[in-house]
Structures are given as C-alpha cells and as structure tokens.
C-alpha cells in the first residue's frame, strides 16, 4: 500500500493523479477541493456581506464574533437547525432531488479545475466540454425545484431562470470556442480541450489569451464574463429571485438545510465558472509575466507573494485588534481576533519556507485570480439594478451571441493571417 502511495509522489510522474490511475491521490485531491471549497464558500459569505456593506456606507455584520467573523458559522448553524418544511401537495421525491442535482452539478465541475500543472483531480481530454455539459445540467435542478414546489411564483421563477441559463450557455460556449481556437495556433495545428493543455498553450505562446490578437481576446473574455454572471443568476441578472416582482424565485418553498444547499451550490457555481474564465483567458496558474521577468531573482520575488499576502492580512487583523474598544465586553472578541491574526501570521511564515514556497506558487496565483472574479461579482451586486426579463433575453440573444460569433470568426481569420 505504501509504495502505491509513493509511486505517485516520485518526481518522474508529471500527470494528474486521475490520469495516473492513482485513486488514493485522486481521493486526497477531491477531499482537498471539498475542504477548500467549503472554506471558500464560508469566506465568500462573510466577504460578500462585508464588502457590499462597505460599498453601501454601512458596517455589515459586526456582532457575531469580531467584525462578524463568526457570522457564516452562525448562518450555517441557523440553517441546519431551521425546520425543513415540505409543502403539502409538493412532490416529495422531486422536491428532495432538486437541490441535490444543483449541488451535484456545482461540485462535479471541480474535478477538472487545474490548480497547477499536476494539481487537479484528473485532466480529461474534453475538460472544457465536460464543464459546459455539467453546468448545463444545473438547469434541470432549477426547473425541477420550481416545479416541485407546486405553487405559482416558484414555477414562474424556475421557468424564467432556466430560460435565462439556457440562452446564456450558448454565448458562453461561443466565447469558450474562440479561446480554444487560440490554443490551436501551435505547431501541430490542433488545439486542446483539456484545461491543463490550454494553460500550457498560453504558456507556450507566452501570452495570456486575454491579450492575444489584442481586442479579440478581450472581447471574448468580456462575452464570457457577462454570460457567466447570467449563468449563475447573479447581480444584474438575478431576476429569478427578484424580490420586488415575484416573491423569491424557484427556491421560495425551500427552507433550512435544503435552502442552504441551493446557497452552497450558487457560490460553488460562481467559483467554478470564474475558474473556467481564469484558465481560459488569464493563464490559470501562471504567475504574471512568466517570460518577461524571468531569472532567479524574479522567481524568488514572485514566490514570496503568498507569504506577503498572508502577512499583510495578519497586519490588518492586528491593526483592528489595536483599534478594538477597551471595554471589558469586547475582551473575548479582541482575544479571538488576535488569535485569528496569529494564525494568519503563522501561515504567512510557513509560506516563506522554501519547500512549501515552490509547491504553493501555482495554487496561489490561481486562487488570487479567482478571488478577483469573486470581488467583481460582489461589485456588480452593489452597483447594478436588475434587468427586466425581456431585456435580459435581448442582451443574451441579440448582443452577446452576435459578438461571440463575430469574435470567433475574427479569431479564426487572425489565426490564419498571423
């Protein structure tokens, strides 16, 4: 058994555990991704509340734990303890199944997300195609959820959101195809659908696809960015759960743990879709200027980044500890915050250690880019009002689709010309 484990660790093997058929490590990666994802969802929950609040000149959760840090924990417990109501005439099987479908699709997408050249559960030959396919399955969950609640408003909400998701999938697909097309401009002339292959193609062509054939890459990225927001029913496209018109979209009848499944699925879908964008256009795990600023010194500098960020976070925490009011009521919170700061500092120090530093490089850059997208989601929510349903469809079909097609053709032409 031991050599089975070691066989993968030997440096000769440069393939993801899935491909190497090594189930043990694949399992380890799956567990790592699950843990990482839940931490990310908890962080997103807190971050979204805080950032949105500060955008709206208010403080956001401050009461539960220092600066509301325990708010996500409180939410999770609340949702677990809340009664899980099953509407009377609802169809029990489908009612129980709908959130599961949505969560399945949201999580299976992560088996092809490449955190590094070898850090992915597996790398399928049809990585991107598989992701699009699975994300289109989540529409089923939404539709069945709306139907199973057996009442007017969820049904209308479900139909609307599925129509929205279906029509934006096409725009998404087109944008992805133009990116894959860029990856095929290498020697043998055939691109690749595998996501690790895509990032390696960007590395080979020494440019992120967002900057390739200058405006085209950016436009394709823009089309994808808009489509992905619509795909996850977020920000300006969050019509299905538009409180002001219909009560609350397809998950009105859900409560307690089932509702939190939808909530969890929404966040992981957001992370998954932005990971596609990062892999396809922003050079997945590549650090910025991998070729322009090469050489020993630059590698060292960039490798210090993970450590620096965590030390910076720790500094912020300690600064806020200093600013905590001296009142005895806040003593526990100050200690808690100081402890949290210490943990961050420790992680920062660990990241400076050379062996850890090299391995963590890829994952760090990938996570930073995805975090950038998360901030964008929250920013959209703070500034944009909601699209009306027909405008939403108009943007999907009459704006994104033609642009997507145009970019695809232009990329092809420029691929041949240059």
């Amino acid at each position, binding site marked *: 058994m031991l050599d089975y484990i070691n066989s993968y660790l030997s440096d000769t093997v440069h393939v993801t555990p899935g491909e190497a058929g090594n189930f043990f490590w694949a399992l380890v990666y799956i567990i790592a991704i699950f843990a990482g994802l839940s931490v990310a969802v908890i962080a997103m929950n807190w971050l979204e509340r805080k950032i949105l609040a500060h955008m709206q000149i208010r403080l956001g959760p401050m009461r539960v734990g220092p600066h509301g840090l325990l708010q996500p924990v409180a939410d999770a417990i609340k949702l677990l303890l809340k009664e899980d109501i099953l509407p009377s005439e609802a169809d029990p099987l489908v009612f129980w199944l709908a959130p599961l479908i949505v969560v399945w699709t949201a999580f299976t997408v992560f088996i092809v997300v490449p955190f590094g050249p070898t850090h992915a559960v597996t790398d399928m030959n049809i990585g991107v195609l598989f992701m699009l396919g699975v994300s289109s399955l989540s529409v089923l969950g939404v539709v069945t959820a709306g139907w199973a609640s057996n009442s007017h408003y969820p049904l209308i909400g479900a139909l609307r959101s599925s129509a929205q998701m279906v029509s934006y999938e096409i725009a998404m697909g087109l944008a992805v195809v133009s990116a894959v097309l860029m990856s095929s401009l290498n020697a043998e002339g055939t691109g690749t659908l595998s996501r690790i292959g895509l990032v390696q193609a960007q590395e080979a062509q020494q440019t992120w696809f967002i900057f390739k054939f200058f405006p085209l890459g950016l436009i394709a990225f823009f089309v994808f960015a808009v489509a992905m927001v619509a795909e996850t029913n977020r920000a300006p496209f*969050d019509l299905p759960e538009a409180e002001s018109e219909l009560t609350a979209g397809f998950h009105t009848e859900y409560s307690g743990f089932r509702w939190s499944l939808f909530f969890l699925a929404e966040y992981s879908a957001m992370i998954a879709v932005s990971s596609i964008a990062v892999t396809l256009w922003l050079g997945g795990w590549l650090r910025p200027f991998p070729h322009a600023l090469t050489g020993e010194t630059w590698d060292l500098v960039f490798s210090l980044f993970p450590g620096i960020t965590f030390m910076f976070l720790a500094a912020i925490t300690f600064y806020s500890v200093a600013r905590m009011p001296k009142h005895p009521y806040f003593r526990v919170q100050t200690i808690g915050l100081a402890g949290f700061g210490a943990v961050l500092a420790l992680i920062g120090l660990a990241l400076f250690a050379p062996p850890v530093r090299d391995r963590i490089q890829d994952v760090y850059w990938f996570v930073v880019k995805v975090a950038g997208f998360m901030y964008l989601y929250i920013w959209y929510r703070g500034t944009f009002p909601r699209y009306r349903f027909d405008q939403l469809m108009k943007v999907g079909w009459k704006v994104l689709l033609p642009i997507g097609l145009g970019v695809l053709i232009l990329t092809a032409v420029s691929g041949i010309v240059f």
Partner: protein
Amino acid sequence: MPDATKFLSHLELGETDQTFLDSNELIINMGPQHPATHGVLRVILKLDGEKVLGTECVIGYLHRGVEKIAEHRTYTMFNPYVDRMDYVAAVSNGLGYCEAVEKLMNVEAPPRANYIRVILTELNRLASHMLWLGTHALDIGAITPLFYTFRDREEILKIFEKYCGARLTTHAFRIGGCLYETYDGFEQDVTRFLKFVAPKIDEYEELLTTNRIWVERTKKVGYITADDCKALGVTGPVLRASGVQWDLRKAQPYAAYKEFDFDIPTGTNGDTYDRYLVRMQEMRQSLRIIDQAVGKIPEGPIMAKVPKVIKPAVGEIYHSIEAPKGELGYFIVSDGSTQPYRVRVRPPSFVNLQALDQMVRGQLVADVVAVIGTLDIVLGEVDR
C-alpha cells in the same frame, strides 16, 4: 380631452377570455403585503404571460376614517391627524391644513412664520423625494442608493427633531403660524446641511442617471401623455414630467413662496426616466429655495392674533398646496362651532394612483413595480 372609455379598467374579473396560445390569462394578486407596493396596496393583475392586460387597485386597508374623526374634533385637535395621512411628507400636510383654517378665519400668518414654514416644507419635500428615490431604486434592483438617500434624509430628520421634537409626523405648525421659535443655531444647521447635501444629490445622479441598466429599466416605462394626466387629475412631478409646467407654488403662491425665485423642472416624454429627472431637479430647486429663505428670515412674531378657541364664521373654503406628491387640497366647511362641519382632503396619491392602470397596460410585470415606485404613492394618504 381624450375620451373616457380609454380609461375603463379592462379587468372584467368574471370571465378569463382566451389569448393567442389559447392559454388562459393569469390573474394574480400583487399585495397587499407585497414588498414593492409601498404599504398595503393590493393590485390585481390580469396577465397574458408577462404582459399586463389590465390592473385593478384594491385599496382601503389603511382606511382610518380621518374625515369622520374631523367632524368630532376641534380645529386644533385635528391638526396632528393631518400628519398621519401622508406620513412621509407630514410637514406639508400640516402646512396645508393650517393655511386652510387660517384662510377660513381670514387670518394671515406673520412673515417670520411664513419663512419658517417654507424652509421646513422644502426640507420635508427633500426628505420625501429622498425616500422615494431610495425605495424606487430598490424596487428596480439597485440596492445601494437606498442607503445613501437614507443617510442624507437622517440629517433632515435631525433638524426637525431639534426644531419640534418629532422626526416624521412633526405637527410643527399651528393655526395662525408656528408654535416654536427657531432654536438658536437653526440657521447654521440648515446652511451646514445645504453644503452637506448638495454634492450628495450629484452622487445619486452618478449612481443612476447614466447607469445603462437603470436607463433601460426606466425609459419608455409607464408612459402617460399630458392630456391623459389632466383628464385623470394627476398632479405633481408626474404631471410635470409629461410636459405641463404647472406648480401650485408658482400658479397660486401661498406662505412666502412669492418672495423666492425658483424654476419648475419639467420633463418631455412623461416616462419613468423623466419623472426621475424631474424629481432630482426638484430636489435641487428646494435647496435653492431654502438657501434664499434661510438667509432672510424676518424678525417679528411667529403667531398671528388667533383666539384661544378657534370658531371660524360659517362658510366653506378650499385651499390647496403643492405637496411633494402633487396638489394636496383641504375643503373645510365650518358651521360656526368649534368643530368643523366637514373636512374633505383631496390627496394627490389617491388620484395619481388612478393613473396606474393607464400607465401599466401593455407593459410587463416588472414594470408594474417600477411604475408604482415612480407614482410615489403613500398608502396612508390614499386610504385616509
């Protein structure tokens, strides 16, 4: 004058006739506890898919019988009731009622009282428009403006509280003038507020006016022509946005409005976007008025010589002012006793709400919410 049949509500609730895809129409209720109906308003929508075929408003959930109570209260006792009708613009209600009774008694409020009245009413108009903007934007999905507008509205409410102890239903005026002298530092507070809020209004504009989605959600939504407005008796910003340059403060000046120069912003094509622009301009005009007024508050008494017990002569009077929502009128009939024989309140929201059916027909469900927001109705005033 458009013919009246156009305004018939197409809501034959009895039968649901077939539509194109021979799916029956959908009759759904919006309200009375719907988040976007600004209070207890129930709108029965007749939908063909997303399109609204006709609406019917069911109101009266907040009916407190204010006019009946008036007949059993003396003139001064009825004064606080007036604030509870349009609780968002309570000061204007109070001003309207006090001026109507003063007119009935043929008494003139002293100039200092008139100036204080103008300042407080314009501050109240600002607060009402700010609350309108916050909730209207929230209905259409923009969450952030709500917090900006409520932060600035708080400043106004602080001034009210310092002046007369109450923030919302202020009961600031009495028949014959104002009860409270302005607290020392009133002028400084108001001027500081003016400097504070002027850039804030530009902030709201920055957030919304050029926001593509906001423009798309409001342009050509809830369209109503000037003739239809006049026919339906719609007044206030809704009428001005349809191109009619009419404002009671200019047409029939009351209190001290004669002495200030301000202009009446009007829109051109009477849709939700124009109403938004008109109200934003009105906020700036209010600032102009307050700025002119706060500098020149004349000295002198703040209360006219009004007998302790108010017993106006037998007779009737109709007096109306320009409330933030439109023309707010009081028709008071006195029978010589200390209690009014009849007080009829002509509420702008009640009459403006009647135009909802006309503005929303043929639009989509999401627009019903936007139009209710742009009509700026307050159910306390609609139901009385």
